[in-house]
């Protein structure tokens, strides 16, 4: 379920935020519906774990509903929301340091057992092999992301996948725009090196993309 244009317009609607701020539960619910997927995907890429991502997202939205009245500038809602999400993600990471338990989904991947990857997705490609390769590449990239430091990973996800502006990321992390850019630079550089190390370069997969 991709966001429709209406949804995207709603996501940035001032009136919705204003109503939610005044305590309108419907507006708050709508905001949660609209932003949940974004925050969940941000957390998921950050943790590579569904349960942790759900935990962090839910905490984020509960916190959002509670502290919305304290939001000064409606225009900054997006960066404000990501700020909450980043804080909860960091908290979860801190809590889970040294906790080496594996999620049940990882140990027993039911989906993988029952059906091939391409069947579970909505899109069907004419070429299942290409689909499979893309899935594999996606997995490799996600694992590579996990090898970056938390700071770099945050910035890369926010920029590349969440499409935040440098200014917005700077607001979220409370750092300067230049620091954001340099973290992104090192993050991308790191990714490039990790992929090169695994022989995944333009030459190996380029023609398939």
């Amino acid at each position: 379920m991709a966001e429709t244009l209406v949804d995207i317009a709603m996501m940035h609607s001032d009136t919705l935020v204003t109503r939610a701020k005044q305590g309108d539960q419907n507006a708050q619910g709508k905001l949660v519906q609209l932003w949940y997927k974004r925050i969940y995907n941000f957390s998921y890429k950050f943790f590579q774990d569904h349960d942790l991502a759900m935990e962090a997202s839910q905490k984020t939205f509960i916190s959002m509903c509670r502290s919305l009245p304290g939001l000064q500038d409606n225009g900054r809602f997006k960066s404000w929301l990501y700020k909450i999400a980043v804080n909860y993600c960091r908290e979860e990471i801190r809590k889970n340091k040294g906790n080496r338990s594996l999620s049940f989904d990882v140990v027993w991947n039911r989906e993988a057992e029952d059906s091939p990857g391409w069947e579970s997705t909505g899109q069907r490609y004419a070429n299942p092999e290409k689909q499979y390769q893309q899935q594999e590449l996606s997995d490799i990239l996600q694992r590579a992301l996990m090898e970056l430091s938390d700071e770099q990973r945050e910035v890369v996800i926010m920029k590349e996948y969440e499409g935040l502006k440098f200014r917005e990321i700077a607001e979220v992390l409370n750092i300067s725009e230049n620091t954001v850019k340099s973290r992104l630079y090192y993050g991308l550089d790191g990714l490039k090196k990790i992929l090169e190390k695994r022989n995944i370069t333009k030459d190996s997969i380029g023609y398939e993309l």
Partner: protein
Amino acid sequence: MSYKPDQNDWMAYLYDEMEAAEKEKMEHYLLSNPEARKELEQYQQLRSMMGTVKDKEVIAPPIVVGESRQRFIWNSPYLKTVASIAASLLIIMLVGKVTGTQVSLSGNEFRISFGTSEVPEVKETSRPAEVTPVLTSQQVQEMINQSLNENNVAMQASWKETQQHLDASIRSNLASNSGKIDKLVREASTASQDQIRQFVSSMQAENTQMVKSYFKLSATEQKEYIEDLLVDFAKYLQQQRQDDLQIVQTRLSAIEENTDVFKQETEQILSSIINTVGAPAATETKY
């Protein structure tokens, strides 16, 4: 060309967030620098690879934030634990009270008992135990027998005494009680005779008074009634008389009128007769 982009410029250009002037410079630089072009291409390549990671679909769970944000004092976990400890202590104390639990520590003895304690018995048994080393078992037996005998005698004596006392007290009680009861009965009977007499006399007086007043009342009523009756009768008679008188009067006046009319008629007749009788005579005379 002195312009050389730093990492920040690279990133800004890669994500198309560069100001127009800077961007122009950058493009210029790229045109004249094939290595830089290659680097840019690598970054773009990386970005397109990263694009293969798709968003995961997720359904937002319902998030309901109630109004119960403020925590009351009695809701704090600290107070809750303290309260629960206090409550359990109270329960223990209550149970102890109900079952009469006693815990005592004296010397080397630690005792937990339920119900009332019977300390004297324990003391009696403990004393001989201290003494035994000095005395032989026979002596002890004798002493016990002796004391038992003494006890028995004393007990019997006290039994008899108490029995006598009890008998005496019962007898005296009975005597006094019967006397009292007799007295009470007598008093009650005499009192009741007097009272009956008084009651009867008062009843009689009341009755006579009632009858008297009743007769009085009825006599006056009868009197009044008869008076009314007489008056009515008199009135009636008067009326009757008047009516009769009126009738007689009217009859009389009618008779009077009749006689008057008769008189007139006879007069007329007489006069006409006279006329008729006189006229022929006259005419006869004339002739």
